[in-house]
């Protein structure tokens, strides 16, 4: 039983947390790909930007003396999301829209998004420096321990406050997104445009509004993912730069352009990462007496330092065998 709880802590809870962050990022990437047809590499830095905006708002709130039972970083999230969405719109207006208006190939937009990544990264470091920061300098990070009322169980299920928040928020965001895409006029327009842009335009869908909506959703979800990641781990300038590739992996696994696929892909990558580095021999410990002498004590699939590599391997394998994603046909 102790071993199972260890598994729960190490694989399920941290996998779900990581998966939530990936899913939130991947939805943005996949929406942009579906509507504007290019891989938006600046998404990782949009997440970092959102996290830094939250951090500044937290400073502002604390300076005003606002005390809340939840972490302040979570309370300021709606404001940070709004600001980041506005910035995302500004970036589109300033950098991508002129290129689209010139009718360039979509690969040029990809290269432009790398230029935007570099500029954002430079600016963030210019103003924030390279130091790491924590959202919990003036607050405590609550850790909940759940003891199971079973005889002989020493370990407790550990889950921290940010972890609960990130999972709950992701679930809420996914439900809201689902209703937006299926019940509202704009959401339906987005799906139509992702399916067939010319047809969408001739049937009277306001494509400019759809593009704006895409950036607003992508920007606010990026801010949410970035802040959540910073709450769970730590805030640093290259926070999301390392995570943008697993996010692409999640989006590709779910099929670029499919929002529901991206959510599934995010959790899949998150769990795959934690499961690959988990030492499965731990689960066999209760049966140790029955195992032969030569049985290895370390049964993890890959060493811990290759944790991120797991995502890339999944990415490459999926691209090679099912570039359309694993849910082709199943998603809307």
């Amino acid at each position, binding site marked *: 039983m102790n071993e199972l709880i260890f598994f729960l802590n190490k694989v399920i809870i941290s996998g779900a947390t990581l998966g939530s962050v990936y899913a939130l990022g991947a939805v943005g990437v996949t929406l942009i*790909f579906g509507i504007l047809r*290019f*891989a938006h590499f600046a998404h990782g830095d949009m997440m970092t930007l959102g996290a830094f905006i939250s951090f500044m708002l937290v400073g502002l709130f604390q300076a005003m003396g606002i005390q809340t039972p939840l972490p302040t970083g979570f309370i300021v999230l709606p404001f940070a999301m709004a600001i980041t969405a506005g910035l995302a719109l500004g970036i589109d207006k300033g*950098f991508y829209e*002129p*290129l689209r208006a010139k009718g*360039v190939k*979509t*690969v*040029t937009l*990809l*290269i*432009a998004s*790398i*230029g*935007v*990544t*570099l*500029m*954002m*990264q*430079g*600016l963030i*470091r*210019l103003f924030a*420096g*390279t130091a790491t920061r924590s959202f919990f300098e003036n607050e405590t990070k609550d850790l909940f321990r759940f003891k199971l009322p079973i005889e002989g169980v020493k370990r407790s299920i550990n889950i921290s406050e940010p972890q609960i928040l990130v999972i709950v928020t992701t679930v809420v965001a996914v439900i809201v997104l689902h209703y937006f895409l299926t019940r509202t006029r704009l959401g339906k327009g987005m799906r139509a445009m992702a399916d067939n842009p010319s047809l969408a335009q001739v049937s009277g869908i306001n494509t400019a509004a759809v593009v704006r909506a895409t950036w607003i959703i992508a920007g606010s979800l990026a801010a949410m993912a970035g802040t959540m990641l910073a709450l769970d781990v730590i805030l640093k300038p290259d926070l999301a730069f390392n995570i943008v*590739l697993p996010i*692409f*992996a999640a989006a*590709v696994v779910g099929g*670029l352009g499919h929002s529901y696929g991206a959510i599934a892909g995010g959790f899949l990558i998150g769990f795959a990462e934690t499961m690959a580095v988990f030492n499965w021999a731990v689960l066999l410990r209760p049966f140790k007496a029955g195992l032969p002498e030569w049985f290895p004590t370390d049964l993890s699939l890959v*060493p811990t*330092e*290759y944790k*991120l*590599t797991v995502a*890339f*391997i999944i*990415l*490459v394998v999926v*691209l*090679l065998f099912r*570039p359309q994603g694993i849910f082709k046909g199943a998603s809307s």
Partner: protein
Amino acid sequence: MIRRDAILFAGLGVLILALGMWLKVPTTIQLLVTALAYALIALGLNVQWGYAGLFNFGVMGFLMVGGAATTFISYPLNDAFWTSAGPFMLLKALIAAIFGGLLIWGVTRIPKKGNLSKLRGFLLVLAWGVAYVTYRSQIDPAAKLIETEAGFVGGLGLHAAFGWIVGGLAAGGVAYVIGKVCLGLRTDYLAIATIGVSEIIRALIKNMDWLTRGTLTVSPVPWPTPLPADVVASGMTDTYMATIVSRSIFLALTVLFIAVIFFFLQRAYEGPWGRMMRAIRDNHVAAGAIGKNVTKRELEIFVLGAILMGIGGAILTTYVQILDPSGYQPINHTFIVWVMIIVGGAGNNYGALFGGVFIYIVWTISEPASLVLFSLISDMSESAGIGAIPEIESRALQMRVFVLGMVITFALRFAPQGMIPERVRSEG
């Protein structure tokens, strides 16, 4: 070359001379060596992207392979490794890898139709699993033994210029495998795949301590030409002059490499082979329809470009004399090369050469330039009573990345063809 290009190159020459006045001479030579190595890498990417339209975002991976290979070739022999049980255990690991490879190959031979076809997918996964476990069971103890007894495998102690060539060939070999599996993908998908592969290569080189010493770094990697200390030993007493002489010889060797490569690239580009590649790039369906083997040609050019990148990476590693896997970042080693060929002009070798040197200079001087600018603003804000800018030095360093991003976004918007654009000579 037309007059506009000549003026641009002359301008670049003036810029370098001006830098020589401003910086010290050895620093300028150092800048030139690195800039030329990047120009060679840019030529490699130009071959892949400019000639054939392959969207390779894994430049960093090839640079690392080139750097690691040249280190392995030119670093002195490590006797502690060769006298230990390490070589034998590595041989066993190699045999295990070959066994695994054969197993996987054997399963892929199963026909897609017939009795076993339903089991094929399952057997393939099983074969991969068995091969992986077999290989891990051999390599893990070998790696552990080498790391504890010998540190790492050391090198072969051969000449460094030979190491450069091997670096290129190793990168080409890796590119062959990557190209074989990835080149079926196009545009964004190929970009994402190659970026993923380059991250895998980075993780491997960073963590295979037995082969590359990983984060512990390998140094000093020998030079192919005399080091400053050697020049001093041969009788030159002035160390400043000795540094200049030594670096100039290194620079001369680099220039020689690039000149030879450039000559052949240009010949190939103007010949039928170059026309065929442009045809494949512009319309691969049509090129396939008139009988060109698109897959094979693209693989060929992917490998060729990677060889150039490998040589460039080898030169970079050799020059700084240290193999530091943690020092490789996508910004400094992949994206900057893309900026070089976009600004220089994709599809034109002169453009790649120009862009390589020019962007590297911009990248280098944007730090001191922003330092000057920030100090100015800081003085102004201080006199205005707002206070000085804190930590000017570390902030100025970050401006390099910003300037790089700004240059590429402006180039895409206002000069998408680059400074020296591609010129297709039309017959008649």
